[in-house]
């Protein structure tokens, strides 16, 4: 593994599988009365959040704590970063504290790349602007493998939940990702990771919400959701922000949800075994109807639980091979 996890493109198929397999093992810890492992005792993981995301922060925090790491939550509020210098200042502070891993969430694409130049610890990208969110893609892949691995016959929520999928990819599975591809870090990371794992990814969105040039993205694209659904094993709905209407990406919420929203009647177009995913937070009634979100084929709650296991695996694999960082004064740099 690389020292950092910044883009899903950093992962080879073997590395991605190693993370998923490790997550499978670590998930079993969650079923034990004592959920803690001593693996990262004495290591420091900093959650550096420049953008509010309680769910992601809590997920990383739980993951680090279950591995017995020391966790420092560092939340930087909007006004103090207005000028932007503080990313470097913050990095130098974390360096001096001896952070072994920095989990960074930032509204600016590329902030983790910058941070990685200024700290010696591992950098884990927990979402950077419209760029990437690789651990989200990993937990999505993990969720898909648990539900649909080893063939597509398993009905949703079946008892083979705990089945052993070690070493299995997502070969041949058809994943349709729907919504604001242009601004979605979840879409970017999923296209890269799911294709690495052998899935066939299709992106569906109104033309305004696609980048003008996709270049070599390993996926196909379409504008027609109804045409894509019957061929899908997985449909992943992306959050669409209401503000996009004001920039004329689409005319109205109602029209968006009519053309690109997943409701019960569209659910009927999906094959029986297909599952519905959403990275959250949802806009119920816009990109996804409430009864679909809460229905049996929705993996939305599972995704949250799986997030902890996958993030444990990432921290474990990034840190267990590396020497502990030493606290520095900053003067020797």
């Amino acid at each position: 593994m690389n020292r950092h996890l910044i883009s899903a493109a950093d992962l080879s198929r073997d590395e991605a599988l190693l993370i998923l397999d490790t997550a499978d093992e670590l998930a079993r810890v969650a079923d034990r009365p004592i959920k803690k492992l001593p693996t990262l005792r004495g290591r420091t993981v900093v959650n550096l959040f420049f953008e509010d995301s309680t769910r992601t922060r809590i997920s990383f925090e739980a993951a680090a704590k279950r591995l017995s790491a020391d966790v420092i939550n560092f939340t930087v509020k909007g006004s103090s970063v207005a000028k932007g210098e503080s990313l470097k200042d913050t990095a130098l502070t974390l360096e001096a504290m001896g952070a072994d891993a920095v989990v960074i969430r930032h509204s600016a694409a590329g902030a983790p790349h910058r941070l990685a130049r200024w700290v010696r610890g591992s950098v884990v990208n927990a979402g950077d602007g419209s760029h990437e969110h690789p651990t989200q893609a990993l937990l999505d892949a993990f969720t898909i493998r648990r539900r649909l691995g080893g063939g597509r016959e398993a009905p949703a929520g079946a008892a083979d939940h705990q089945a052993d999928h070690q070493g299995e990819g997502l070969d041949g599975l058809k994943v349709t990702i729907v919504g604001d591809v242009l601004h979605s870090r979840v879409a970017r990371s999923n296209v890269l990771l799911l294709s690495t794992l052998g899935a066939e990814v299709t992106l569906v969105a109104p033309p305004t919400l696609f980048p003008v040039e996709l270049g070599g993205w390993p996926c196909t694209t379409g504008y027609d959701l109804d045409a894509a659904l019957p061929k899908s094993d997985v449909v992943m709905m992306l959050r669409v922000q209401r503000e996009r209407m004001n920039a004329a990406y689409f005319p109205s919420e109602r029209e968006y949800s009519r053309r690109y929203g997943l409701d019960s009647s569209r659910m009927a177009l999906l094959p029986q075994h297909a599952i519905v995913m959403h990275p959250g937070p949802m806009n119920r009634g816009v990109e996804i109807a409430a009864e679909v979100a809460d229905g049996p084929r929705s993996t939305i709650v599972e995704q949250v639980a799986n997030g902890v296991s996958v993030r444990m695996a990432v921290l474990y694999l990034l840190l267990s091979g590396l020497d502990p960082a030493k606290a520095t004064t900053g003067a020797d740099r």
Partner: protein
Amino acid sequence: MTGWLIRGARPLGGDPADILVRDGAVAQVGPRLAASSARGTQVIDAGGLIALPGLVDLHAHLREPGREDAETVQTGTRAAALGGYTAVHAMANTDPVADTAGVVEQVWRLGRQAGHCDVQPVGAVTVGLGGTRLAELGAMADSAARVRVFSDDGSCVSDARLMRRALEYVKAFDGVIAQHAQEPRLTEGAQLNEGEVSARLGLTGWPAAAEESIIARDCLLAAHVGSSLHVCHVSTAGSVEIIGWAKSKGWQVTAEVTPHHLLLTDDLAQDYDPVYKVNPPLRTQADVTALRQGLADGTIDCVATDHAPHPLEDKETEWETAAFGMTGLETALRVVQHAMVDTGLLDWAQVADRMSLRPARIGRLAGHGNPLAPGAPANLTLYDPAPTEAVDPACHASKSRNSPFVGMVLPGRVVATFLRGVPTVLDGKLA
């Protein structure tokens, strides 16, 4: 007054000749001039060096007044002289904005005091670069600074009616409007050329059409009112085509390209290092090829640096919060040699045309951009095309270090620069 005898230089890259400089002017050019004919002259051995008319930059940000932490007229003109320039146009987006006779005269005087090269202020088109009211263009034209080039550079004069009036108005004093072509609505929050790279990096795209649509509109306006339009920092293949079309109609349209757009492409942004963040953004290889071709065939008239110094803290940040701009005065000629001469697209006479003669004509600078012939003001640059060296911004005279060529091995070295017969640079160092 002492003179200089420059021995064995190759004027415009041609056959070696001696150049005798006396009383601020070129006195004689010819093979083996007798030293005795020039009592009191100092002799420079310029064997192997190329002699060019002093370079003229139509587009530099000297930052003074207002951002003296990034650059001053003093440091910026040192950088210019070291780059082989004898005249630079100082853009108007200072603080206060150069939109009155008072401010342009202040900048002009600072240039005279610094003495490293002539500083020709550019006046703002609109008050405070606000894009709504015409600045007092006539007062700036009539001032001691004799402003002829007007630009809101940094912002686009996007209001079509205002642009038309500006073009029309400056006809009274042979002025030219230099447009920063950027349709504002199409580029809200724009960070990087809109294309494959911006899609992958998740950065808001800056579409080529936002530049091209303004250029097309302005060409039509310039034709309609019979005035002169100069297009700043052309960056796309489509822009070259539109400008070629306007020229084929005989319209008074000129254009510049920056060294960085002749060499660098948007994929350099892949690690989000803001040293590659510039406006207009780095484009694709196809654009670079078209820009080189346009400069070679004369569709693009000249090279202008868009030298845009920024202090470290404005670049050592996330991409989105970093400032736009790159330094360029000290590397321009080397980049042009690398991109245009060593590739066979331009010879040295054409380099002189694109970096001195034509920009001087567009900027209405009579004392610059003259052929190296007896009687001309002795503004000249001696350049050694042979050495190669990696660019190290730490060694630059500019106050700022944001050179996108950092670490690149480029050919060439400016050995000497003369401003009206007085050396501003000798042996590669400030004289």
